[in-house]
């Protein structure tokens, strides 16, 4: 099935056909869908076939039915997520959804790479969110099998692949480090930081970012042996001096500031042309916003999310899965 937005009526038919799907839509839409072989998350920003689109009426469908030979749908509480990969199949992949701002979100962000067997199969997915104009809403996840919705924990669709196929997970990060960026580190792991360390000196992070005229639409980047991992800025509170980050920084990692990007659309479209057809993909809502994707044709269809998952929590990144 083509990865794109569908009407509720169409999705209801897919559920009746026992398709195994990841469904992304507004909360009211998801809670009124029939029970079935699906997991879901709340988001109403998408990259559809024609380009960026906000909708609280339609459902983005990622159907895995034709790829898998067996499936399992499961919900994990925030303190039980470390069993995620142990529950996956011998050969396959797992798609997960976690609600933003939940204990599960923080737990996964800080600890996922330490979960047993996390690398045994690709773990891909997203962090669900809310309408950006209604910050008081709470992000939700759904277990379609039981019809339950949750504001904490993780829902997973484990997919088994036939022996001759392998799932490969990869990312597209259009950001690169500024050549003249300082090397930045932090004293503690976490999603909120007040201070950073630059050239051996402990500095107020907000003051430092101002001193180097950094545009905080663009992230800090950790280089994990070639994998560029973004840490985006969410809030800068001048009173408390706290900087909120979309993905946590770690005290044993160093970071550089990202270069500004002038043309998101061209950058993404060029990167996407270089990859094969994806079986699953999602992109960051910050790219949707800062790149003005609502009014542009970007080739990478998928939900635009409040955090992307590729074994670990990422942001301002596109994650994708290819079955080969």
């Amino acid at each position, binding site marked *: 099935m083509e990865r794109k937005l569908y009407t509720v009526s169409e999705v209801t038919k897919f559920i009746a056909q026992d398709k195994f799907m990841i469904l992304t839509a507004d909360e009211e839409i998801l809670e009124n869908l029939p029970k079935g072989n699906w997991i879901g998350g709340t988001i109403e920003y998408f990259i559809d076939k024609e380009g960026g689109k906000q909708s609280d009426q339609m459902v983005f469908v990622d159907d895995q039915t034709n790829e898998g030979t067996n499936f399992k749908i499961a919900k994990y509480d925030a303190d039980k997520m470390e069993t995620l990969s142990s529950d996956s199949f011998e050969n396959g992949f797992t798609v997960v959804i976690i609600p933003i701002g939940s204990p599960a979100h923080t737990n996964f962000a800080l600890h996922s790479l330490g979960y047993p067997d996390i690398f045994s199969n690709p773990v891909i997915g997203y962090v669900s969110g809310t309408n950006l104009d209604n910050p008081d809403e709470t992000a939700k996840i759904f277990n379609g099998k039981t019809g339950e919705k949750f504001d904490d924990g993780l829902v997973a669709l484990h997919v088994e692949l036939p022996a001759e196929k*392998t799932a*490969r997970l*990869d*990312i597209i990060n259009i950001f690169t480090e500024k050549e003249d960026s300082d090397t930045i580190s932090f004293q503690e792991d976490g999603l909120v930081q007040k201070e950073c360390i630059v050239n051996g000196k402990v500095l107020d992070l907000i003051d430092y970012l101002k001193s180097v005229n950094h545009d905080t639409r663009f992230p800090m980047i950790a280089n994990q*042996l070639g*994998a560029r991992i973004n840490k985006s800025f969410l809030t800068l509170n001048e009173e408390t001096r706290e900087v909120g980050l979309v993905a946590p920084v770690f005290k044993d990692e160093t970071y550089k500031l990202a270069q500004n990007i002038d043309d998101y659309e061209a950058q993404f479209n060029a990167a996407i042309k270089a990859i094969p057809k994806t079986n699953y993909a999602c992109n960051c809502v910050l790219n949707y916003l800062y790149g003005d994707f609502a009014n542009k044709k970007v080739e990478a269809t998928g939900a635009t999310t409040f955090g992307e998952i590729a*074994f670990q929590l990422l942001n301002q990144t596109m994650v994708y899965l290819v079955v*080969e």
Partner: protein
Amino acid sequence: MANSNIPDIQREEWGKLISGEIIHEFKNYTLQVQLNRLQKKVKQGKFTAQYAKEQLFSLCSKYYLAANADLISIFKTW
């Protein structure tokens, strides 16, 4: 641990990848992230170099198709 799809685990390059003596930026995201993590764990004393080597070898065995270009670049032949 014999697997003709990838170099034998006895090859010294595996250990050098873990210790950082061979610096290679894998093209494959999964290998980049896992090797980065393994190197950190060994430096922190949480994993032995031998255990980390086995973990890396195991991952490359499973994803030998995706790892092939990187392995050729590092090991040349096997």
